[in-house]
């Protein structure tokens, strides 16, 4: 049983495509995390819960009879303001403190968000239907849900748009300047307070997009945020801060690794295998990770 994948080569194609498509979605969440980690030096434990909240926004418009795919536009707009508000309310008080304080603060935010979502949307697991159908390849032996292809496509689209925005726009330049050296940027007239708020808002908006995509590809529940936080944390650790191509590669790589671990080691070890890999990478990077902020390229 363990080596079914080698007996049926089509499974290998299926596993690779599944891993890559899911990996791209995770990479989008991870990019948001890398961005605000790089700029503000904050590890956001509530990342996954922002994702789920974004998903619930898409689910809500689905309940109103609007196609949930519109969530990828509506959800980030709402989530940007949620992120902005969160910064003004909580994050601005911990932004210059040490990492432990920010972890504690965002952990608190995560709990509050979970309970709020549970209160508003209920504890039932929900799904939104996209009715996008399925793409069949190789005489139906490989099947790809179009919703997953759609979500990977949207993720790439937004990621590219964000990279261009970061390079070309005034705010993008200000964000990069702040990430490189917040004090110098301030002296040169950058309103770092505003930059921080915008960064947190952009991160929340990215989570909103990912959440909307998850509502049509996977399932939503108020308490499933943590795995997304952990996953994006791992991707960022592997990729390093502020390096989008590396984030994309490491997102897809982890997705692939997980799928193949499932076939070769067994389903019960797939998460374990990923964590083992993380430990190895952490040990390897132990000396590389310095306290200083890295800058966005």
């Amino acid at each position, binding site marked *: 049983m363990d080596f079914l994948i080698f007996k049926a080569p*089509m499974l290998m194609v299926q596993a690779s495509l599944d891993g890559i498509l899911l990996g791209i979605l995770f990479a989008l969440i991870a990019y948001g995390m890398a961005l605000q980690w790089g700029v503000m030096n904050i590890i956001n434990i509530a990342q996954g819960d922002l994702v789920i909240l974004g998903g619930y926004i898409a689910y809500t418009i689905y309940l109103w009879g609007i196609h949930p795919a519109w969530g990828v536009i509506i959800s980030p707009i709402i989530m940007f303001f949620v992120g902005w508000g969160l910064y003004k309310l909580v994050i601005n008080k911990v932004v210059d403190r040490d990492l432990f304080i920010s972890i504690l603060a965002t952990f608190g935010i995560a709990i509050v968000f979970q309970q709020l979502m549970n209160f508003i949307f209920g*504890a039932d697991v929900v799904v939104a*239907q996209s009715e996008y159908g399925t793409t069949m390849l190789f005489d139906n032996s490989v099947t790809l*849900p179009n919703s997953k292809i759609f979500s990977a496509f949207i993720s790439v689209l937004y990621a590219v748009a964000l990279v261009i925005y970061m390079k070309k726009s005034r705010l993008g330049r200000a964000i990069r300047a702040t990430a490189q050296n917040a004090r110098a940027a301030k002296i040169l007239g950058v309103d770092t307070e505003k930059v921080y708020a915008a960064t947190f808002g952009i991160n929340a908006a990215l989570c909103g997009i990912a959440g909307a995509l998850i509502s049509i590809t996977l*399932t939503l529940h108020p308490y499933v945020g*943590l795995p997304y936080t952990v996953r994006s944390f791992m991707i960022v650790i592997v990729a390093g801060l502020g390096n989008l191509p590396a984030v994309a590669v490491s997102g897809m790589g982890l997705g692939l690794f997980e799928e193949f671990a*499932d076939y070769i080691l*067994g389903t*019960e070890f797939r998460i374990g295998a990923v964590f083992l890999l993380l430990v190895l990478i952490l040990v390897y990077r132990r000396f590389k990770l310095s306290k200083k902020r890295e800058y966005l390229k």
Partner: protein
Amino acid sequence: MNKIAKLFVTFISAITLALVSFTSSFAKVEGEYIVLGSAISLTGKYSSNGVHTQNGYNMAVDRINKMGGVEVQGKKYKFEIIYYDDESNPKRAAQLAERLIKQDGVHYMLGPYSSGLTKAIAPVTEKYKIPMVEANGASRSLFTKGYKYLFAVLSPANQYLEVAIDLAVEKNGGKGVRIAQAFEQDAFSQDVRLGILDAAKRTGSEIIIDDKLPKELNDMAATLAKVKATKPDVLVVSGHTKGALTAIRQISEMKVDVPMLAMTHCDAAKLSKQHGKKSEYALCASQWHKNLSYKDKFFGGGKKYARDFQKEFGYDPPYQSAESSAALLVFKDAFERANSFDRDAVRDALVDTEMQTFYGNIKFGPGGQNVAKPMILFQVRCKGDDCENRVVAPTKWASDKFYHPIPKWSERS
């Protein structure tokens, strides 16, 4: 200033005293009330099912009280329940059980929601020798620990899907079948898995895929790809509501053709409502269905119960509510047969329980599990976009014929 402080202290102590005497007055039986206690998940991840459980309890309390209450030694008593919110947290549940027993003086307990929380509470009730009738903890391990004060009105988890394997074998002309199974790694689902292993051994069936899904996983694509490649006769999935919804979503998206699909938690997942026609032909294990013909004098039959419940709470009762209501009927019956409020007398009466309720027959085995009621299987069937659950097994209660095999996706509209 000093005077005010003194006054304040006196005031506080007076209130404390009043509170203490008030709480301690909540003994086992207070005036005309028999006080039961329950820690239940009103917030947290089990809150929807926790509320179903509470509604079931409340419905039965109202009904029993209205219909004359409980008669002990010629005097009529009414039920009353003290609830605490355990926040879906086992540690909290155990603390609250302790509090119910030690501070509130409760002598009889009703169970919480889920096997995990029941497992947390059972050692406490056992320690204080408090009889607990529970309706929502099905894990087999609850019934193998030798608990003497635990009674469950529901069938244990390992029986959930055994019927499905029997059905598959029957359709295969009595020969063994090839089974693919995917179970979440939690106590309940793993017990369901053990049941399947037993059934496979008994029927000479072969298990070709045996995946254990991580709890945090909501993607089954790998398992389903294996199912596609190996073409089993039956696919069995159990992973609470998340597992049921994920399975249907991905089976329909990946166009996995399998002759038979058996699951748990379809009811709680509102499967046919959320996935519509995609969920058609799925077989679901259930403790109860309103179409069963069991009867009692309090609720009439299942259909009447469902109507009354709908009127009171505004939704169709899931089996979690029905079994919770049944727990109260069991307590009433035990109190009346014991004709006493002595805990051990009540416990002995519970041991001898043998009754029929609208929910099913109830008789407790040596471990405390209900041995008199079979699990039922229903199949999701749709007319147009309207889907409903129809009972297909066991044959005695079946309202519809079991549809087998499931048509291929390419043939489904």
